[in-house]
């Protein structure tokens, strides 16, 4: 009897799906495995996910479930989950059980061990998909993917930092789109180096406003839980929404950060924030505190703290953040996302937050840069209303 072909898929997270897809595609034995690209996030995803998830579980779980059901319905039979910190560490087991109870037939692999990354075990797991996979090939592809993710983060951070200063709107979006297409198509480290050179060349060519003369631009930092930070759909494209209002956005949490910097920096963070914390808060809570202090030091105008409903580490961080906000007189807005959050509500709050920061800044600089209710504002509203491509 001919052995059934594996059809592999995985949950989405921001634009990271592209390098991950590329890695899997290059690792597996195509005579026995196909890779299915997970469907784009939509309302349908979260509806499917919430229907089968425990009500009080946090949002990432529900999105993951939605992703899984969508690919299973499309014929996938081999699911990959990451595993990792806080409650997330137990997701894989619960999700597998729920999906089995729903009657789906599939193989399920959780990549990380509860204690963290175990390269040898990881290799064994990937070999399920390619019996002839040598360790050298495995190592090469994983490193390539990590490098690709690093580049992706660098490019996206650069764009976030400069988006506001773009003179001809849409240039960055175009470069980003092309870059994403290319990053899912690299075979060797040389390709990546070439891509990097190419994309940086294009990025540097984008004409920017003189940063000195655009001092009035409002700067906002985004802190909080990792999934909502990195998956724009789950926060109704919060960053783009802010950018459309004319705000410069800074965000620390990226996969690069989580993979390489997080482990090393916890102690540093606690030391840096020792006025407020003595020990780690778990998951991303410690970073939320330390990064807030850093943003204040860097002169940011406001901070937005985001989390899925019920995220315990971030709830722990909130009272400390409130104290910091009071002592440093910096506004922090807390946004909680769940499957039923209304987009209008978020828009209203962001708009009000923006108005407030503008008023504050005008007062501080004693010049009237942008007046509330000015034509510019009306234009921004129009821009919002008529949308921009996501």
């Amino acid at each position, binding site marked *: 009897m001919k052995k059934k072909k594996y059809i592999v898929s995985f949950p989405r997270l921001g634009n990271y799906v592209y390098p991950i897809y590329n890695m899997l595609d290059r690792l597996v034995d195509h005579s026995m495995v196909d890779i299915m690209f997970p469907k784009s996030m939509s309302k349908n995803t979260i509806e499917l996910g919430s229907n089968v998830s425990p009500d009080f579980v946090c949002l990432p779980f529900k999105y993951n479930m939605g992703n899984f059901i969508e690919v299973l319905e499309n014929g996938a039979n081999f699911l990959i989950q990451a595993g990792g910190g806080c409650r997330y560490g137990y997701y894989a087991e619960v999700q597998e059980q729920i999906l089995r109870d729903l009657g789906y037939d599939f193989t399920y692999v959780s990549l990380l061990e509860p204690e963290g990354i175990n390269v040898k075990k990881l290799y064994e797991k990937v070999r399920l998909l390619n019996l002839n996979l040598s360790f050298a090939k495995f190592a090469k592809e994983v490193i390539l993917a990590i490098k690709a993710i690093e580049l992706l983060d660098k490019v996206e951070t650069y764009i976030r930092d400069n988006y506001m200063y773009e003179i001809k709107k849409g240039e960055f979006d175009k470069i980003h789109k092309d870059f994403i297409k290319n990053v899912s198509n690299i075979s060797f480290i040389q390709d990546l180096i070439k891509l990097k050179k190419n994309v940086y060349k294009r990025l540097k060519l984008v004409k920017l406003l003189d940063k000195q003369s655009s001092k009035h631009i409002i700067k906002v930092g985004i802190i909080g839980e990792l999934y909502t930070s990195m998956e724009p759909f789950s926060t109704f494209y919060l960053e783009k929404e802010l950018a459309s209002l004319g705000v410069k956005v800074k965000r620390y949490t990226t996969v690069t950060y989580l993979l390489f910097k997080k482990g090393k920096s916890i102690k540093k963070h606690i030391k840096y924030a020792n006025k407020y914390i003595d020990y780690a808060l778990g998951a991303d809570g410690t970073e939320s505190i330390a990064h807030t202090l850093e943003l204040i030091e860097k002169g940011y105008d406001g901070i937005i703290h985001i989390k899925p409903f019920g995220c315990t580490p971030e709830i722990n961080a909130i009272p400390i953040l409130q104290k910091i906000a009071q002592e440093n007189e910096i506004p922090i807005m807390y946004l909680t996302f769940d499957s039923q959050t209304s987009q209008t509500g978020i828009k209203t709050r962001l*708009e009000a937050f923006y108005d407030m920061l503008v008023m504050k800044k005008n007062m501080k600089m004693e010049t009237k840069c942008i007046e509330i209710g000015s034509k510019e504002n009306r234009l921004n509203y129009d821009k919002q209303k008529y949308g921009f491509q996501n």
Partner: protein
Amino acid sequence: MDKYYIGVDIGSISTKAVVIDSNNNIIASEYIWTEGSPIEATKKVVKTLKNILEKKKIKCNIYGIGTTGSARNLIGTVLNANVVKNEITAHAIGTLSVYPDVKTILEIGGQDSKLIILKNGIVVDYAMNTLCAAGTGAFLSSQAKRLGVNIEDLGNIALMSKNPSKIAARCTVFAESDLVHKAQIGHKKEDLIAGICNSVVHNYLNNLAKGKKIEDRVVFQGGVSKNVGVVEAFKRVLKTEVYVDTSSHLMGALGVAIISKNANKNGSKLDFNFDIDNIEFKTVGSQCSGCSNNCEIVSVYKDGILIDKMGGRCDKGNSLRKTI
């Protein structure tokens, strides 16, 4: 010729509108229930404004129209407003024009509640309830109905109580079960109602005021500010005077009227017709099939001509050019 500005605040429960002159004085105002149809409510308030102005023999030249509240985008389109502003900014600007020294604005409306902190006349912090309508006007009106009391009388009845019942403040469901339970074991109606008023205050302070300093002068507004029971409870808990303006319910409309004034820099007269009653506005709901988000698009027609589309996440659905 004098210049006048219109501000309309279309909330979930009530619709408020004002006409102001260039010195921010309210010339005419109206306050009615929205009753689920913002367009009809707007037509009604505009008609009333017109009648008031005619009675006062004011020939009105409109130089600015602003809309705020949860239906601000829809009504912004209908009235062809020059400013559409969120209610937080509108409330802050409106209140500042009446109380320039205000430091704290407490606002409890039909479905949401807000806390706005100001310093030297600018907003420095705010909070707005999320995810839950506990402790808002909707809770009060449903409990009033349960107790068979008119919502307007709730406050005065509460003041009669000498020993308010303790009602859970955390969650509407818990509050309601507390209420039912205490009613059944014989608590007096006025004690229960005073308990509800207290619970609204505690819920508000627990949810919104966490980590925020409430300083004098405190101004309380929104529909619930008309309830003296809640006002007294705020005074008692905050241990400070709480100001409720007679036109506290109009602050959002006033604010957005002032914003529309500031926005009309070149001072050109707007082409505004008070007789919108005769114009037929129709909204048609449809689903965009551009992608799997299936956004619900609302198309607004004015006398059969499409004037706006809204509700889409991208311009695929919102674009007026393409049909979906």
